């Protein structure tokens, strides 16, 4: 019956409350996540209009962006502006009856780590948050995307959003990833191919055996960066791995409803002959460990490559952008990536701060020492990830190697808290954006996988993780 549908179409269709004549839809939202930076003005708006929160249980609040990551922290932090935001999210959530994980709660952490960890993110759902990396939750076959503060207010007041349907794009990667090549390298390679605006107006579906072969953590890393290709969201079809990850989590369906839920989730698969407006294909075997050289995530090359030459670029606007990026990054065309010397290493962020990422970093640095000129930081994605890593002995390995071991938060991914680069410092980072000033004014960011970051911390410069002993 009807035309064959994609996974995205199915989630969309099952959440349309009302459609206006021009195609704009009132879309029902299942899960709303909020944090301290993009919510104060939304609550202020509700208060000014005398509006209530329609379904408080469908929103979870957690502070992550401007929180300090040092031990003994509280809402009463040194930065007066951060202090105000931390106090406001606590007051606002109390006033409107929304659940909030504060510092005193071991479940506090980066909002996109906490949601899945608590079992809040499930297949076939709509998940939104005032943060572009909400795309992360697409790993579960949920339609998850970032919204602005006015829309945070809209969801709080109505449990819906005004949205227009996006186009479908399928990115297929077949084959097995070579040893040492991770989900992060895979998604960086995808962004390198698609470009930072290549998926604008689209929702991506990640298909093919290379994506299917990833763990849930790996899938979250990939979906997380769908936004860096310009996509509205990036989805994986739910499968047994998804269900196994969810089972037994605090907010997962209770045992009595589990089978009913799985049956429901199974319906969220693309039909075999579904049509995608856009298709991209890569071969897994050709993907190498990746490093960004510029100031956009699309500025990415293999660790064995050399910094590209603007003189070889024909399009003027692209050449100028490249010249500007190279000047900002203080790199020369032809310079080998493995010759780039670093000052800092950051392992964390909603892209790579889950237990698997920390295990990988620990495996690489076990019995080794961070180079003397490097300052290296590991920031677990949540209090629960931190506790697990401590229990598994991972924290000890990292600390003995010379890494600082911190409390959960966005930390040096965004530089809104005390963790940031100083002007001119160069960082190997497992985060998601290498924009100018992202990790601190005039700071220089190279995006890499956790294993590549860990190895770089020991060597003091980039190394090909495939040659690591």
């Amino acid at each position, binding site marked *: 019956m009807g035309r064959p549908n994609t996974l995205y179409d199915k989630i969309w269709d099952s959440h349309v409350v009302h459609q206006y004549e021009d195609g704009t839809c009132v879309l029902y939202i299942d899960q709303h996540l909020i944090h301290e930076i993009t919510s104060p003005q939304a609550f202020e708006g509700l208060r000014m209009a005398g509006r209530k929160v329609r379904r408080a249980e469908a929103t979870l609040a957690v502070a992550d962006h401007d929180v300090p990551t040092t031990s003994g922290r509280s809402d009463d932090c040194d930065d007066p502006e951060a202090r105000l935001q931390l106090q406001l999210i606590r007051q606002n959530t109390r006033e409107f009856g929304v659940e909030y994980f504060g510092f005193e709660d071991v479940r506090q952490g980066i909002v996109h780590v906490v949601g899945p960890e608590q079992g809040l993110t499930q297949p076939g759902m709509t998940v939104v948050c005032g943060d572009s990396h909400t795309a992360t939750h697409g790993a579960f076959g949920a339609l998850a995307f970032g919204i602005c503060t006015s829309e945070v207010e809209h969801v709080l007041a109505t449990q819906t959003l005004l949205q227009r349907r996006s186009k479908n794009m399928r990115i297929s990667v077949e084959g097995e990833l070579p040893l040492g090549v991770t989900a992060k390298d895979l998604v960086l390679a995808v962004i390198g191919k698609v470009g930072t605006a290549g998926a604008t107006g689209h929702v991506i579906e990640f298909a093919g055996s290379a994506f299917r072969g990833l763990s849930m953590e790996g899938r979250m890393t990939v979906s997380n960066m769908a936004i860096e290709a310009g996509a509205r969201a990036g989805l994986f079809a739910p499968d047994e791995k998804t269900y196994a990850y969810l089972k037994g989590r605090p907010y997962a369906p209770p045992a009595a409803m589990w089978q009913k839920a799985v049956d429901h989730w199974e319906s969220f698969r693309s039909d075999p002959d579904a049509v995608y407006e856009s298709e991209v294909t890569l071969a897994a075997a050709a993907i190498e460990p990746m490093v960004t050289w510029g100031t*956009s995530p699309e500025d990415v090359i293999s660790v064995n490559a050399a910094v590209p030459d603007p003189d070889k670029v024909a399009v003027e606007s692209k050449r100028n*952008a490249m010249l500007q990026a190279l000047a900002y990054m203080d790199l020369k065309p032809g310079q080998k990536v493995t010759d780039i010397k670093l000052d800092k290493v950051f392992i964390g962020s909603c892209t790579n701060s889950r237990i698997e990422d920390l295990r990988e970093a620990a495996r690489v640095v076990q019995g080794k020492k961070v180079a003397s000129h490097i300052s290296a930081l590991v920031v677990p994605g949540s209090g629960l990830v931190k506790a697990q890593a401590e229990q598994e002995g991972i924290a000890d390995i990292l600390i003995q190697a010379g890494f600082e071991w911190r409390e959960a938060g966005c930390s040096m991914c965004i530089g*809104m808290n005390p963790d940031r680069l100083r002007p001119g410092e160069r960082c190997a980072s497992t985060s998601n954006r290498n924009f100018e000033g992202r990790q601190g004014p005039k700071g220089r960011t190279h995006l890499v996988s956790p294993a590549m970051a860990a190895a770089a911390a020991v060597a003091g410069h980039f190394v090909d993780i495939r040659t690591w002993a």
Partner: protein
Amino acid sequence: MEKFVQITGYAAPMPMNNINTDMITPKQVMKAVSRKGLSWGLFCEYRFDDQGNENPDFVLNKEPWRRASIVVALENWGCGSSREHAPWAMLDFGIRSVIAISFADIHYNNCFKNGILPVALKPDEVARVMKDAEAGKPVTVDLPSQTVRLEDGAAFPFHVDPFRKDCLLNGFDDIALTMLESDKIDAYESAYRKKVPWLFDRRPAGREPAPFR
């Protein structure tokens, strides 16, 4: 929301691709807890030096673009972070329209929520507008007729979704509009609750909240 019908003003030329929202409003602007008074944050890392002095070379510090109500850029304006602080700061500075070859999705949408009209034109048309912008000539953006007009009479049509156009022309508040459909939301919700009961009345089922440290 402030209505948008037609504006005529100076257009600040920013002939670059991928101007992201971290550039438009860097992280320090995100410490704000109000929507108003953010004009200081607009491109502040480019407009001001470390001491807070104006950088005379930056376009928004030059005449006549200190008074710009339009920005002209190339591809993928507003990519990156979803922060609405970007349109808030733009609006507070006086920017009511951005003309570019293409826009990033989230930011494009955020502009409409704040009475700012993003206009996508063809590359050669943007080049023409850019030329006038650089010459300090006024540019007109007219929403009812969906055209950008230059001083010499050149006119370029643009697309805008009818729903968004209507909201901008009337200054409608999205939430109030959606609340007109409350009956439909109620009906959807009660049917949906039967279909996916585990998504309602959610609490960590059968478990106490995690212990405090």
